[in-house]
């Protein structure tokens, strides 16, 4: 057990830190969402040119092949430098890794480089209005025709759909097969008339996500990933990628929020209130519990290939802590914090989704119960 960085890890950290000091893009531009997205796209190009965009990808596919610890160090330095996120997050974290794991040589040749360079943005078409937690019940149809597939259906919560060239799409290719077996994983070209993107307004008032209406869109055979009927297994890879390594980075964000909360408590004259002190201490413990659990997970994964039981609770820990922090901020901040132009009111509202997005806390508890504790399934 040694929580200090090795000489190699320190050298890596210094390299990242120095590079960020030199190349930080500054503040995002004022103006519309499109301008901000272009700024993030340019930032990703800069990252890619220096070999940072695909930090977790194998070197043979244009990545850096960094260890989990190096990835954690990289994220920590990005957070410390307050560097923006790259534009093509879903392509880097999910699309690319799926193509690498399940794609053909031609697909790797075609899709990987434009993901890294942010030339082609990716979005994810999994959830449907009738299929959230029970994703495998999805109804979007894929009908075989000569040379490809005809897709019809509706998707929801599709981040970046309005910027995306490609959509990772899960659709039912065999309506007669058992629900997990009849699915196929497609890469859908968003630039066709049969795909309509509509913004989905959320409780914050903004529209981060979209709805996707697909009416007979075309996917050629060469854009099927992992073969017909294997969509569930391929999709599971992307979901695993979505959750892996979340903890260490998430704890950094929580610590920044906690720092803001402590400042708020002081500014509102509540730093001496025993109730406030107790709640902030609980939150500090929660943040550190998440951070340290994530580090245990990293070590276990590097040693034996899989995280221990501590990894299964990271998302639960994060969502609960983030929601509790924003709730306390509203109590401390009073009506000022509830103003529509105050960042706490936004953070409070946005955090309501934390226990839903990327796996609801209810389903995550099912997963802990069944896979970690070995309890019988309800179904």
């Amino acid at each position, binding site marked *: *057990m*040694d*929580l*200090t*960085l*090795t000489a190699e*890890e320190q050298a890596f950290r210094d390299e990242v830190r120095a590079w960020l000091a030199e190349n930080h893009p500054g503040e995002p531009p004022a103006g519309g969402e499109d301008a901000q997205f272009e700024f993030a796209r340019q930032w990703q190009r800069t990252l890619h040119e220096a070999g940072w965009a695909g930090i977790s990808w194998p070197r043979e596919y244009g990545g850096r092949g960094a260890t989990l*610890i190096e990835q954690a160090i990289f994220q920590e330095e990005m957070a410390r430098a307050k560097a923006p996120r790259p534009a093509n997050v879903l392509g880097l974290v999910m699309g690319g890794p799926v193509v690498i794991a399940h794609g053909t040589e031609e697909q790797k040749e075609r899709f990987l480089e434009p993901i890294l360079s942010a030339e082609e943005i990716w979005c994810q078409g999994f959830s449907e209005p009738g299929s959230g937690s029970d994703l495998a019940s999805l109804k979007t149809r894929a009908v075989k025709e000569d040379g490809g597939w005809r897709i019809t259906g509706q998707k929801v919560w599709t981040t970046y759909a309005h910027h995306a060239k490609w959509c990772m799409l899960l659709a039912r290719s065999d309506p007669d097969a058992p629900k997990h077996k009849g699915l196929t994983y497609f890469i859908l070209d968003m630039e066709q008339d049969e795909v309509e993107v509509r913004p989905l307004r959320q409780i914050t008032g903004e529209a981060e996500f979209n709805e996707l209406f697909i009416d007979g869109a075309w996917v050629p055979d060469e854009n099927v990933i992992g073969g017909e009927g294997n969509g569930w297994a391929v999709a599971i890879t992307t979901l695993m990628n979505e959750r892996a390594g979340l903890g260490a980075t998430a704890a950094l964000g929580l610590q920044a929020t*906690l720092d803001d909360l*402590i400042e708020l*408590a*002081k500014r509102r004259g509540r*730093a*001496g209130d*025993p109730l*406030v*002190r*107790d709640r*902030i*201490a*609980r939150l*500090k*413990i*929660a943040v*550190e*519990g*998440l951070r*340290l*659990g994530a*580090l*245990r997970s*990293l*070590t*276990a994964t590097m*040693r034996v290939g899989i995280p221990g*039981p*501590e990894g*299964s*609770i990271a998302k*639960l*820990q994060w969502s609960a802590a983030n929601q509790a922090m924003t709730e306390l901020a509203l109590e401390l901040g009073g009506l000022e914090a509830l103003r529509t132009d105050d960042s706490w009111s936004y953070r409070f509202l946005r955090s309501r989704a934390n226990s839903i997005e990327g796996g609801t806390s*209810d389903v*995550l*508890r*099912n997963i*802990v*119960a*069944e896979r*970690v*504790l*070995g*309890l*019988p*399934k*309800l179904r």
Partner: protein
Amino acid sequence: MEFGFSDEQREIKATAREFLASRFPAEKVRELAESGNPYDDALWGEMCELGWPGIAIPERYGGQGLGVVELVILLEEMGYALAPSPFISNAYAGALIASAGSDEQRERWLPGIAAGTARGAAEFTNEGGPVVGAAKGSTVLALLTDGGPRIVPTADAELERIPVIDDTRAYFRVRAESGDPLPGDVAWARAAGAVALAAESVGLAARALDIATEYAKEREQFGRPIGAYQAVSHRLANMLWAVEEARSLTYYAAWCADADPEALPLAASMAKARASDAACSVTHDAIQTLGGIGFTWEHDIHFFLKRARVSAQLMGTAAEHRERVASLVGL
């Protein structure tokens, strides 16, 4: 960076799990708890042969010269087995004398503590006087309050057994007029002691979770195992959450005690607060999962609940430690 145990540490853990499971099966723990004297001299002798009492005491005093991480490994396993033993009292006294004692005090007391032949016992808390675990049968007491940090030969002290609900440990109120002051700073040892107790609480919580989980798989109501119902399975998932969070914080605090003492005060308070709460809530939830059988004397789970509750009052309550956390984060 590696936040996990080394091969040697895993070896210590595996040996401890095996030894404790064979020497302290549930029937033995019950027998000791119900006997009124929870400590078995022969079993203590076996632990001494394994070198456990001296695990974190420097080699020049006859110890193994290992650290708080290794101590925590043993204590988590002792909590898991709910082994009645003077081990933690002896280890805490050893830490206080080793870190805050004079050379003369170390020379005089540590070899006996390390060998386990002349045990130490130390103050867990003060309620109407210093309260010491396993004071009877010890040779020397390390006291902290009512006269400051000092050493008192047990023979010079008056001991009064306190009948608290935890029968798996013997608690004594101590009256001692004099004592030989500990010249050094006891802050490190107090923090390390709190981490040690946190580790024991993590272990007993993990065992209570295992007991409840096994029961939920076997017990059937309404035609299926109760663990298939989400009201039950989600509670068990929350119990795992509590145990794992407390465990991560405790391991980190143990590492700080050995390698990053400046970070220890915050780390130790976070660990003790979380582990006390986790042990109390998990043992309570285990009883809820067990239902009626969990409320019977016949079932072992109450021994875990009781140890958890008493430990939560020792070496600083969760609320007291959170108050320290608040101060240390700048409030």
